């Protein structure tokens, strides 16, 4: 249990933690009994300082949990054991990697298939306008929107996406932002989303790896 996490716990108690911190500290507390115990003591401290302790009883927690989870034993230690057990039951679900690997593998194969069928691999940055049109199946749409001169509120292809596509995209972006916020590497590598209009043809900027090299004879 790191000091940073304990400080987040303290801030969460005061309603001063931001959304990412809150999620992180509660995710951790789900599996960390020490963190939950500290949360209990911090609140007990608050109750004592505010002179609220008249009816407090240390055994009360165990009593409530044993009633809540019928058949469970009655002491505070046993209530903690039930909670720990619950965490362990959930842990294998979280830790099982092979179904995710299977899905990831399938996704990679699917992505590779799409990649080849849309002809992206055949693109030469110096190639013909025909090739470019084929390569960027969404580029015409991009060009249309950009040429309207209006502010683009959402990616062009995004507007054509189904509800499920949007949901997946939002979930991925949220996850990415969270990872970045915690000073970890994000899940999405940086790519240019915008495209530029160059005369009559549209070219996704992401394909122009080195603009300076293109100018060279």
């Amino acid at each position: 249990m790191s000091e940073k996490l304990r400080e987040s716990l303290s801030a969460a108690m005061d309603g001063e933690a931001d959304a990412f911190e809150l999620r992180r500290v509660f995710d951790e507390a789900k599996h960390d009994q020490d963190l939950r115990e500290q949360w209990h003591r911090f609140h007990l401290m608050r109750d004592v300082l505010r002179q609220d302790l008249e009816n407090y009883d240390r055994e009360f927690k165990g009593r409530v949990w044993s009633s809540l989870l019928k058949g469970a034993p009655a002491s505070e230690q046993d209530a903690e054991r039930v909670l720990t057990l619950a965490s362990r039951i959930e842990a294998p679900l979280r830790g099982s990697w092979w179904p995710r690997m299977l899905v990831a593998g399938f996704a990679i194969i699917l992505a590779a298939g799409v990649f080849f069928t849309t002809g992206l691999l055949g693109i030469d940055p110096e190639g013909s306008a025909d090739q470019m049109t084929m390569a960027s199946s969404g580029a015409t749409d991009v060009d249309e929107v950009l040429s309207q001169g209006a502010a683009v509120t959402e990616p062009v292809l995004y507007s054509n996406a189904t509800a499920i596509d949007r949901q997946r995209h939002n979930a991925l972006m949220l996850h990415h932002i969270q990872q970045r916020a915690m000073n970890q590497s994000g899940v999405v590598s940086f790519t240019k989303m915008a495209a530029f209009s160059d005369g009559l043809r549209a070219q996704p900027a992401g394909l122009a790896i080195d603009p300076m090299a293109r100018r060279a004879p």
Partner: protein
Amino acid sequence: MAEDTDKELVKRVQKGDLAAFDMLFAKYQVKVLNLVARYVRDQEEVKDVTQDAFIKAYRALPKFRGDSAFYTWLYRIAINTAKNHLVTRGRRPPSTDVDIDDADYRDDADLLRDVDSPEAALARDQLQDTISRALQALPDDLRTALTLREFDGLSYEQIAQIMACPVGTVRSRIFRAREFVDQQMQNVMQGES
């Protein structure tokens, strides 16, 4: 931006996270015990009714839509449970409810209530004494930050203005103060068990 701790915990309980309910319980157990004690005198009955209220709340949480604050909702459950308890015991519940803002307030009549066992009272006194002494032993800046937060209920931003320091410093001071007091509490609690 600060997020609503209760909302996040409730959301987690609704997804089946037991630990989140444990954290909500930790936050409100004393508050609900004190609220119920305004209706019921006997200490054991107070615990029974409070326990019922928490169990009802846990079972009803999947239906909680978050239209009101979690504590407002829990407070209504606790009051209804206490009143039902009085009716089933053939006693007449009070005609007016304890106001949510006055739920922590105790009048002189409360002092006449049946008291807990001497051992429990001693343990409570010892804990109170420990926390009080730990608070006195804190360096001034830590003590001021913690007391402004706990006694006056000020936000980190307000405390930062009073103490003329950044919000991050306030946050760190409050945390360090709590850790120090917590250490003393653990020593006492481990000695008891």
